[in-house]
């Protein structure tokens, strides 16, 4: 545990030798990576390699067995950790959107700042409308999730997460469940965020997108990071045969 104040020159998220098993299945076998403030990293890799498990550990949706995860200098897996405080700093967007179906788009975005952060309603509403506007959904404020397309729902989900003013955003294959036509609108929203300086950890299969927005790309296979590097070298100079095979299949 670190009580020293975190400063922006230190990694915002620091993952050190993380191990995690589900029963007998060891899903993470010593993963380490750092994310600086404002950095965008992409995690790629075959299905079942533990990508989702890894990023779910960052906001304590999953526990870890060994190792350390620090967010702004705070150990995530300290038993005394205030999980709610952590989650106010870490936003997450899921593959299946997981919008609240009984609430409109606007209410979905407003709910957490209102009920969790207890911010004043007028201010929250103003910010929520601005966020919906920012993800290009002006006019859809009153729509229920069931009335929106997958891409639209996913953009509401992004806005909902942003409404908490997080310091880092986690994206878990957020375009994997979408129709091809709507993938782009969601990627654009994320790119806009990234360019705005938001720290992002993305699990994605969109290689073109990763190449474009990522500062660093990590390739995982069977619970370890096999290879990593900036996109300029990662795609052209992959050395590990597993990375090469994966890239040849997907590109």
């Amino acid at each position: 545990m670190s009580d020293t104040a975190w400063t922006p020159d230190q990694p915002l998220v620091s993952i050190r030798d993380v191990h995690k098993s589900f029963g007998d299945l060891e899903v993470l076998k010593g993963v380490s990576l750092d994310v600086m403030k404002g950095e965008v990293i992409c995690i790629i890799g075959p299905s079942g390699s533990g990508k989702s498990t890894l990023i779910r550990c960052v906001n304590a949706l999953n526990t870890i067995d060994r190792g350390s995860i620090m967010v702004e200098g705070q150990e995530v897996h300290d038993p005394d950790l205030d999980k709610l405080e952590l989650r106010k700093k870490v936003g997450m967007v899921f593959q299946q959107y997981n919008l609240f179906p009984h609430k409109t788009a606007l209410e979905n975005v407003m709910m957490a700042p209102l009920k969790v952060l207890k911010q004043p309603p007028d201010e929250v509403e103003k910010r929520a409308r601005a966020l919906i506007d920012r993800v290009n959904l002006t006019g859809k404020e009153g729509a229920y999730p069931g009335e929106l397309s997958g891409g639209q729902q996913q953009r509401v989900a992004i806005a909902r997460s942003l409404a908490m003013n997080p310091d880092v955003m986690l994206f878990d294959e957020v375009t994997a469940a979408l129709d091809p036509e709507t993938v782009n609108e969601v990627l654009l929203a994320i790119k806009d965020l990234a360019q705005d300086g938001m720290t992002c950890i993305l699990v994605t299969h969109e290689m073109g997108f990763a190449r474009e927005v990522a500062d660093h790309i990590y390739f995982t296979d069977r619970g370890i990071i096999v290879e990593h590097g900036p996109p300029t070298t990662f795609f052209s100079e992959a050395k590990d045969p597993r990375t090469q095979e994966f890239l040849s299949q997907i590109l």
Partner: protein
Amino acid sequence: MKYPLQGNTDLAVLKPFNYSPAGSVQDLQFSRWLAEFSPRSLLWLALLACLWPGIVLAQSNYTMAQALDALWRWLPFVVSKGFVLNLVVSFLTMLIGTIAGVILGLGQISPIRAVARTSWFVTQLFRNSPWLVLLFIVMLAFPFEITIGSTVYQIPDWLKAVFGLALPIMANISEIVRGAIQSVPTGQWEAAESLAYTRQQTLWLVILPQCFKRMIPPWMNWYAILTMATPLISLLGVEEIVTLSRQAMEAEDNHPELLVPFFGFALIIFFAYCYPIARYTLRLEKRFAIIQ
């Protein structure tokens, strides 16, 4: 609010432990059966009923007309003192059973393992016990009077019966609540959790509003079952419709011809009361199914 880490169980809330419930409480078998009761089968029943005294007791000189006349005279008494009590018992039982059942159902999904297990055990115990046995236990175990301060309150039998019937109702409502909550996809819990909702907030703001409607049809189904079961308490001497019918027949010298009119009337009045409830239950279920 701080959460203790829970070993290696992620989202323990959603899978308290594995077991197979003894049949689903959510199915509306009873309402379906009741709602599909055709008027024609009722007519046949009535015809058969009219034949009964004629065949068995042909030698008697007490006629069916006299029996019906007796019923007619006793009817206001049987309904206003008897059936009304059945209804009062059904309302109160449902009220108490629902409140206790919701608490128990929420207990079943508690992240505190001991609470979840205890609630599950209590639920299974009362769901699978014969109602009459529960009734007898409560009748005999409860004190006859309660002293508060210097006043002594007599607890009427029918009130004890309410508590007896409320136990199985509570257990079945508990299962309805647990089932409905667990029917909400885990993604909803995770989304709320990652937005820093507390468990209580997640439950009350996100999960329960989504499954509230799903609970209404099975809840009504249990109300109809309960109402039909209220004559059980006549076995304990509570003066509800069946007890009063028997008292009335006794006053009419216990002619066997009285049986069919009196008990037939009891059947009809319960049917008339529960049939619309069953129809409405099924309609609601269909409507909610379309929404989802």
